[in-house]
């Protein structure tokens, strides 16, 4: 199994509070991704990174920011959490971009009350 961990695994927070999710990899892969998974929508890309300090938006980036100061860590921040951001968040990594295999972490279940 690819070495990907996500923390926390579960979180309950209140509307309006900032939340940071962490993804850590031990594979030294260049690309890292944050997705959210909601019923009926599959996985939707929030942000991705193609190197240290190199990030870009995905299809559902509003209300989210990311940072990557080290190869192994990719942080996702919900600046002011809303109930619509209740979801399961997955981090993924790949050695190359495009259609390369992505390896997923175990997910973080976030509930915004």
């Amino acid at each position, binding site marked *: 199994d690819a070495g*990907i961990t996500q923390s926390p695994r579960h979180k309950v927070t209140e509307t309006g509070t900032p939340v940071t999710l962490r993804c850590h990899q031990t594979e030294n892969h260049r690309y890292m991704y944050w*997705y959210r998974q909601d019923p*009926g*929508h*599959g*996985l*939707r*890309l929030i942000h*991705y990174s*193609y190197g240290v300090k190199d990030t*870009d938006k*995905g299809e559902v980036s509003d209300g989210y920011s990311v940072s990557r100061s080290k190869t192994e860590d990719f942080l996702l921040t919900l600046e002011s959490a809303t109930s619509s951001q209740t979801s399961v968040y*997955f981090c*993924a990594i790949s050695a190359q*971009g*495009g*259609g390369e*295999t*992505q*390896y*997923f*972490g*175990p*997910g973080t279940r976030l509930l915004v009350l």
Partner: protein
Amino acid sequence: TQLLEQSPQFLSIQEGENLTVYCNSSSVFSSLQWYRQEPGEGPVLLVTVVTGGEVKKLKRLTFQFGDARKDSSLHITAAQPGDTGLYLCAGCLTYTGFQKLVFGTGTRLLVSP
């Protein structure tokens, strides 16, 4: 608007039955992947198809990429309880100069003994 539609959304069958899951789009993909996801875990890659018309077999699973590279199917022969899970297709598209995966809506399969 979901780029990749999967059907059916849910499928409940008995052990030993055959089934087919479809993944359809109006977009052309450079490649297409199928993932399986079990409860509480991230998706895991099953197969990648690249060429239009390509057929790949993985034990009892047969994957086909449409001739026009807009659709794909997954056929399972003699399903077993261990096949239970969420099946996701993902197509590779070029988006703002970056090739990324677009995930389908998912098919949840339950195989009962």
